[in-house]
């Protein structure tokens, strides 16, 4: 359970950093992390503390187990499975998201329109794959290679996946956010990614699924406006939080389990 302890230390470190930054700005310490009214220096400190905390966990966990990070993470990136599993994950996520958005556009539940200057849109589109891959890589290392792998050593598969799913979803709501009901979508996504990891014992499949999803959604964000009801199309950057999005994630989870055999050794 070293991984859980390390993960829980991250929000604590974030809160300490936020508190120090708030005092440095002459503001009162607050219990909650984040918020729209944080002064820019405090926001930047909080962001830096988040990234640093996550990086520390990724590096410290193997060291606490007595191995180098390279030795620990290398087995999760077996080259024999690399291309196939990553490509499958990316293709599957792309198919589901694309077809859903076509259905939504055809029925005016989502509108594709240019809402920013061309230069800004091009920049966002070019950065989307890079951001997608980076975000997915960090989260997969943290929540699958560290946390889930650790849980699987001492818990039954079902319990490990349940805790891993809950931890992944909760982490997205540690900071104050606009809406909390979208956690349903994050739970379904967490279940998919945990299942993909357990089924293959590598990070390629969850990485492909995760990276393609983040890339597509962040790439579409400057161009799409969701006009349908939230229960159908989710919210803003979380279209998978609606009933259809959650159904898609659960369906894909089942397909992952069936396709990759669900080997438990």
């Amino acid at each position, binding site marked *: 359970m070293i991984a859980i302890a390390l993960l829980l230390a991250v929000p604590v470190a974030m809160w300490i950093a936020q508190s120090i930054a708030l005092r440095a700005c002459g503001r009162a310490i607050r219990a909650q992390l984040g918020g729209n009214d944080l002064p820019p220096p405090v926001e930047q400190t909080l962001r830096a503390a988040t990234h640093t905390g996550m990086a520390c966990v990724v590096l410290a966990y193997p060291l606490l187990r007595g191995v180098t990070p390279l030795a620990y993470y290398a087995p999760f990136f077996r080259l024999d499975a690399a291309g196939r599993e990553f490509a*499958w994950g990316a*293709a*599957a996520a792309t*198919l*589901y998201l694309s*077809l*859903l958005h*076509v*259905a*939504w556009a*055809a*029925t*005016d*539940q989502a509108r594709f329109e240019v809402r920013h200057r061309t230069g800004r849109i091009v920049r966002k589109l070019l950065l989307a794959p890079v951001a997608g891959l980076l975000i997915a890589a960090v989260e997969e290392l943290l929540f699958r290679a560290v946390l889930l792998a650790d849980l699987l050593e001492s818990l039954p598969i079902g319990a490990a996946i349940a805790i891993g799913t809950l931890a992944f979803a909760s982490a997205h709501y540690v900071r104050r956010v606009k809406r909390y009901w979208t956690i349903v979508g994050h739970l379904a996504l967490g279940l998919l990614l945990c299942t993909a990891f357990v089924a293959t014992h590598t990070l390629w499949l969850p990485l492909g699924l995760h990276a393609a999803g983040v890339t597509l959604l962040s790439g579409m964000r400057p161009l799409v406006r969701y006009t*349908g*009801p939230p229960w*159908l*199309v989710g919210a803003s950057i979380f279209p998978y939080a609606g009933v*259809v999005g959650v*159904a*898609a994630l659960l*369906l*894909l989870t089942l*397909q992952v389990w069936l*396709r990759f055999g669900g080997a438990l050794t």
Partner: protein
Amino acid sequence: MTSTSPRIVIIARESDAGAAALGALAAKLGASEIRWLAPRDVDELDRVAASDKLVVLFPTQADFLSALWEGRVSAETWSRVSVRFASPAAVPDAELARATIDAWRAWSIRQRRRRVVAGTILSLIALAAAATLVAVL
């Protein structure tokens, strides 16, 4: 009937509650020909409106506005025909904007409901298509 008597198309069913008032208005206008078109068949106006002596009768202003916003009749047809309402006989200017907004709002709600139903059905089809394609990957 004179050669200038208008052809009248009534956008309602003969079995509707206000049909009698519409028929009476058509007779008062000296119609040379009366035709009934159900609201769902309003797009047939494009075919029927061959001359500019056509008068189109709607039960209410809201019914006319719904037909207008649905966009199933061409702008050319609308510009050729003469539109009348059975009731109210006239809307004071001060209430015109409110009446139009209310009618638009009611139409928007109906339209949105229709699109949500269509969106849900098409989403399920999209899920099935995606699942099928992923299964053969």
